[in-house]
């Protein structure tokens, strides 16, 4: 979720209920102060917001009627996302972001956001909810991205199931930016296993068909597996399944859990200590790696992984929700470690320790 800032702002009287969206620019009159420029705002071209610590030139923010500034895009970060919708057709046991009803204004806000962004954007995440439930919104974003940021890396997070419709997938693939990767979540190698996690009848079959369709359309595909108590015993089978059936995917990521939302509610059903499955994970990762596949481990700190897994561990946690714990202060590998989800609160994996550089 985006970061919020408090600011005392003299707001004009007729601010819309949702506030308005604008881009932070430098105030040319008062050095060091930020100005939010907002061409669509009826009364003024721009709004002086003072020198709010943490906001950068190029950030896109929403200013709410109560004076709260919500940052929608941090121009200094590579972890920015567009939230296409909050709704989803699955209800995964470990979802950190439980779905709710769709609000169509989200789409117009996203369009506005993309239009405001500086041209030098390197990385755009597209997520939800389930983004592909709204193919028209996606093609709208794609066309702006193709115009304004043709070289940006675009990652779209999806459960893949709406892509089982070949025509939808074809429309999206034809409109897709050049450097786009479909990051498809697939939490099991059989229908029974996957459905026990995502609670959607035939959802796994559709996701599989979605991946096949993307491959037919020569799209770049990443497969993401969140490791929970349910699928942990089958990590090696899942790896073998992906290699045998989807050898065309460009990347495979095994992910540790973020304990918030549904994941917090279902904690006892889904939580497994990473230390209980890292040996299996190690074998699965090595199998994929020696088979020539690109593979990564997300969200599991180095101190819990066997050393053979370290080359595959990434600093995967988005900067705005990443943290370290007190034990990490003495750790000499901290600068290459993913750390922890601040959103998981006190629910930390067991076995955290400070590592020495050998």
């Amino acid at each position, binding site marked *: 979720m985006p970061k919020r800032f408090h600011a005392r702002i003299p707001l004009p009287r007729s601010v819309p209920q949702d506030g308005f969206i604008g881009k932070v620019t430098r105030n040319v009159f008062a050095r060091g102060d930020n100005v939010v420029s907002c061409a669509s705002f009826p009364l003024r071209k721009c709004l002086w917001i003072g020198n709010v610590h943490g906001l950068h030139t190029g950030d896109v923010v929403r200013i709410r009627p109560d004076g709260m500034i919500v940052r929608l895009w941090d121009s200094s970060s590579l972890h920015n996302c567009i939230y296409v919708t909050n709704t989803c057709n699955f209800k995964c046991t470990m979802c950190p972001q439980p779905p709710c009803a769709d609000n169509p204004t989200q789409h117009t806000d996203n369009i506005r956001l993309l239009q405001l962004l500086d041209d030098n954007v390197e990385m755009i995440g597209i997520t939800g909810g389930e983004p592909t439930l709204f193919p028209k919104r996606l093609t709208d974003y794609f066309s702006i991205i193709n115009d304004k940021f043709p070289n940006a890396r675009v990652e779209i997070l999806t459960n893949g199931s709406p892509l089982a419709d070949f025509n939808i997938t074809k429309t999206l693939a034809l409109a897709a930016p050049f450097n786009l990767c479909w990051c498809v979540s697939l939490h099991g190698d059989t229908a*029974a296993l996957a459905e026990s996690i995502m609670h959607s009848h035939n959802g796994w079959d559709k996701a599989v068909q979605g991946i096949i369709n993307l491959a037919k359309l020569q799209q770049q595909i990443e497969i993401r597996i969140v490791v929970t108590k349910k699928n942990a015993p089958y990590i090696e*089978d899942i790896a073998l399944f992906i290699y*045998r059936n989807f050898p065309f995917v460009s990347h495979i990521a095994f992910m540790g859990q973020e304990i918030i939302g549904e994941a917090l509610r279902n904690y006892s059903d889904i939580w497994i200590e990473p230390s209980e499955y890292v040996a299996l994970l190690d074998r699965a990762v090595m199998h994929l790696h020696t*088979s020539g596949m690109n593979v990564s481990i997300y969200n599991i700190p180095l101190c819990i992984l066997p050393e053979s897994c370290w080359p595959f561990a990434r600093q995967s946690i988005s900067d705005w929700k990443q943290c370290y714990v007190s034990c990490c202060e003495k750790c000499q590998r901290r600068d290459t470690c993913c750390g922890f989800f601040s959103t998981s609160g006190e629910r930390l994996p067991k076995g955290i320790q400070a590592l020495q550089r050998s």
Partner: protein
Amino acid sequence: MFRLLPFEFKRQSGGTVLAVNECGDFIKLSASDFSALSEKHFEELPSIILHQLESRHFIADEEHLQTAVALSANKYRSRREYLTVSTALHMLVVTLRCNHKCEYCQVSSKEADAYKYDMKPDVAEKIVDLIFQASSPVIKIEFQGGDALLNWPTVMAAVHRAEELNKTAKKELEFVACTNLHALNDEILADLAAHRIMLSTSLDGPCKIHDKHRIMRTDGSSHKIFCEKLALARKYLGHDKVNALMTTTVDSIDNVEAIIDEYVSMGFEGIFFRSLNPYGDAHKNNLYYPPEQYFSMFKRGIEYIVRLNKQGTRFVEYYTALLMRRILTPFSTGFVDLQSPSGAGVSGVIYDYTGDVYPADEARMLARMGDARFKMGNVYTNTFKDIFLSDVLKEILHKSCVETIPGCATCVYRTYCGVDVFRNYLETGDIANVRMDGFFCRKQTQIFDWLFEKMDDPDFMEVVGKWAEV
């Protein structure tokens, strides 16, 4: 509700059962698990086994059958991908003359001055014109003999024509010359370098073994000259531009370690264990051995190579690498001599000095011995379509699918194996008749049995498993 998907199986020596499905997925089951599976008592299977059987498409839940079939179809298609491209390997027999008279020669080479068996440059050009009608994005032209270097003007005529045509065709074009290297000279070296022509040669082992059957028409040691010319070729062309093949005779069987040592000391990164073919002079000269003897050499050789790798010498046996790739990866493999349907004519084709086209060298040899039934046509009298849609080729395709050949159809290894149609024809008079007691089938079965047994040995797989990616 689960149901069985198609698969074949075999009881292994330890009592376990190996099962392999249509797409090359495999699983090893205990005898009791297998009997539960075969009787469809799925509830008796441990949950992890049940899960693996479903994940690897040996069984499917009725409700999700469509997905299992869709995935299996994709896998099956991937493994057969080589059938979707037209013929890529084109072999030209530019001469039958040779400066050697190897005792196992399968083409029955001729005296070095028997010029009437030379391919004329204009025939080579005509052949190249035909080759470029193939839609394959990769074209590999291999010059064979006799010794290809002995008719160099024809080789270069073909190379020049191919390069000319490729200016517009823009295919990935490769040239290989098959030679014992003896005739290598400065002029030929300059051409090889200028046109990036690779060399494929023969090395049977250390001097004693090599010279035993690779006999020069003039006196002297073949091995000695080979070594000099190999060094020369590598110096001018680059170390990796020369590949060598090893032919197994009755005399190599007990010396496999020495043969491997010879390859290692000569700086080769791997070896290809090739068994003798029962054609041409090999038969006549009684250099033959039973498959059990070949297999014992093969096994000892691989075990020796594994030890070398463990000691830090990176070295590969390419036939095992091919089988490993078939067993451990989902990909199609382009090895002409072990395909189903047969790769003869579909993946590779051979042109005789007259311009006659044959699906394989064996078919050309049969024609020379008076049985021309496998001739696909002639580049002067037939069009590309005539040749590559010839009844001969259709017959080979129809009759060489392991799925339909009696004996092969129920073999657990058939997904990884292939058909040697001409060996079948020679042995039985029918290209579709595989003799289960024949050399080929016994050799293949023993190798597969052993490899699947060794798959449980992590030390072995740490070396051999990685060959799948070679």
